[in-house]
């Protein structure tokens, strides 16, 4: 039991220790480095607000991941869904610049959710009805979404009034109308309405998963497709809906990235992560670290937001590139999943000993590594 509660902090600690070794390998002082990281992320109200701001898209994606993975659909397409959500909502805001803010802002959020939901729905449809591996299809859809974005932002949606004769024009849209800007909620910082939206979505996600029949069906399908089907749950429709909802959350993250940005327009540099800042992948890490629970993901998103914001300060102080943060994140995922797997092994051995019988040769395995975490969390209501 102790192992269960310590698993997440332990894996974070292990990842940070390896990170410290890497900083040493760079010839820098890890203590100075982590101190710079901490003060950059959590020192002072401005840093705290920047961290919260960075955490918003992470949290939205993470809630989406929680919903999809609870139905045992690994939505790796956060990146693509962020992009389609952002594109749809940006196009809407550009077309209707004169709507009052209290209409326009809810509208763009809904449109963004629809954009993300559509993109995830494609993968969900193929998974549910054609049994296409969703990890692969969502990755492919990411690649397609990014190219479509590059096409639109450097073609039909480009800001035609920019005059960079020498450097060439930047792939970006016109300045969005001020009616669509997310209002700042703490003056003097960049903290805007997006935070409220994200936390509301997380709470809604929690209620959906544990307080509604639909959420129950999602979790039932995630635990066992066969058992759920036997109980009369429409398995295919549930998987499809979970993916659509998951994409909707990621789409909203896209809207927050555009309408809550400093430049107040949609900009990319043409690369895969130029617009999203890898939030679609980081959100997966956040969700896993939050135990696939939307409420714990709030804390988890804030911590990882701090890691990302602080990473930049660390780069400034000790000159270790922010890629270190990416590396640490990768390690966190590996450790969290491995510890979970070891726990299953450990429990089975214990059980076998208690029963005093040799269970060798029993068919089947315990399913994917992530599954056991699901089982644990589904049984004990958080």
């Amino acid at each position, binding site marked *: 039991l102790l192992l269960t509660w310590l698993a997440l902090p332990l894996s974070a600690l292990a990842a940070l220790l390896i990170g410290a070794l890497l900083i040493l390998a760079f010839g820098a002082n890890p203590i100075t480095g982590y101190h710079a990281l901490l003060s950059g992320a959590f020192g002072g109200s401005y840093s705290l607000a920047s961290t919260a701001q960075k955490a918003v898209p992470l949290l939205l994606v993470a809630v989406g991941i929680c919903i999809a993975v609870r139905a045992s659909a690994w939505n790796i397409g956060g990146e693509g869904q962020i992009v389609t959500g952002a594109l749809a909502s940006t196009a809407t805001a550009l077309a209707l610049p004169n709507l009052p803010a209290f209409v326009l802002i809810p509208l763009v959020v809904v449109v963004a959710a629809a954009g993300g939901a559509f993109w995830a729905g494609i993968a969900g449809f193929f998974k549910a009805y054609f049994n296409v591996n969703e990890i*692969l299809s969502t990755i492919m859809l990411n690649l397609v979404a990014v190219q479509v974005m590059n096409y639109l932002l450097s073609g039909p949606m480009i800001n035609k009034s920019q005059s960079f004769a020498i450097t060439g024009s930047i792939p970006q849209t016109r300045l969005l109308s001020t009616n669509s800007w997310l209002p700042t909620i703490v003056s003097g910082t960049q903290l805007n309405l997006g935070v409220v939206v994200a936390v509301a979505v997380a709470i809604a996600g929690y209620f959906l998963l544990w307080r509604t029949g639909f959420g129950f069906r999602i979790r039932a399908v995630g635990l066992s497709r066969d058992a759920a089907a036997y109980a009369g749950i429409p398995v295919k429709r549930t998987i499809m809906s979970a993916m659509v909802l998951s994409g909707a959350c990621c789409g909203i993250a896209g809207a927050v990235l555009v309408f809550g940005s400093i430049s107040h327009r949609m900009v990319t540099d043409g690369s895969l992560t130029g617009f999203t800042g890898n939030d679609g992948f980081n959100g997966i890490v956040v969700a896993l670290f939050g135990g696939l629970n939307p409420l714990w993901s709030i804390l988890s998103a804030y911590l990882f937001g701090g890691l990302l914001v602080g990473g930049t300060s660390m780069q400034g102080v000790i000159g270790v590139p922010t890629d270190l943060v990416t590396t640490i994140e990768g390690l966190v995922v590996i450790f969290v999943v491995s510890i979970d797997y070891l726990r299953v092994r450990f429990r089975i051995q214990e059980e076998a000993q208690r029963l005093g019988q040799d269970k060798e040769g029993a068919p089947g395995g315990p399913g994917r590594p992530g599954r056991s975490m699901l089982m644990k969390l589904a049984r004990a209501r958080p």
Partner: protein
Amino acid sequence: MSAFFTYAILTATIASAIQYATPFLLAALGETLGQRSGVLNLGVDGIMLMGAFSCYYVALETGSDLLGIVVGILMSVTLRAQQGISGIGVYIFGLGMSDLLFVRFVGTPLPVNPLPTVDIPLLSKIPALGRMFFQQNLLIYLAFVLVPALAFVLYHTNFGTKVLAVGENPAAADSVGINVTRTRYATVILGCSMAGLAGATLLLLDGIFQENLTQSAGFIAVALVYFGAWRPAGVMSGSLLYGVVTAVVLQWKSLGIIPTSAADLAATAPAVITILALVALAGRFKQPAALGKPYVRGA
């Protein structure tokens, strides 16, 4: 369009299609081996990145491509990956780590020498075919030789039989004394070394390392394994299709058949084709029964 159908352009396109196909082929063959033993390794892309960087660094320091390739493979092997979502962890790790090392040890990107092409005697003199198939570099020949080699290993050796048994029914394999864990480690280590080699190939075709060099090529390789129905020959045809589509799109772009404004859209072609192929082929072929399931005795 008529500019495309000339002897010189067509042969050059096919020749470059084979080059584009090679990294996918190598990575996908390695993944095929792993999946046949039941291990779904989604970290291929991260491993390719590490392989590519290690190769780049060593080649830059020593001037020897060959040594670079060897170190690239060794580096990838130490990263041998786990299943499913932890593969995504390996990917994120490789993505960050390769660039971290790049900034730390290299900083300014310098090109390395591409591998020299080796003309195969006699065969390279055949008109058209010679230009297309027999004037390539060694890694490309190696990749295509590995196709029948892997098929032979899987279907005609003791080791191959063990791999297939472990992938279909690990409990049964265990009961007849096959060491499931060791077999899976072996396939994953071999598979990762092939992914590392794929990264090295990609690097030596470009000649320079950059952040996220692979551009998700590793994930496409995993998709190609499904596409090829877990058979080496099928995987090869998938890789070649991918290579041809990539080469044709690039060629059309440079000939102006595709307007530059639509070039970004045309670049989605390989990914779209992969999705459609996954849908079309889904369920036609049986996947290894124990794919993606960790084996725990007595579970």
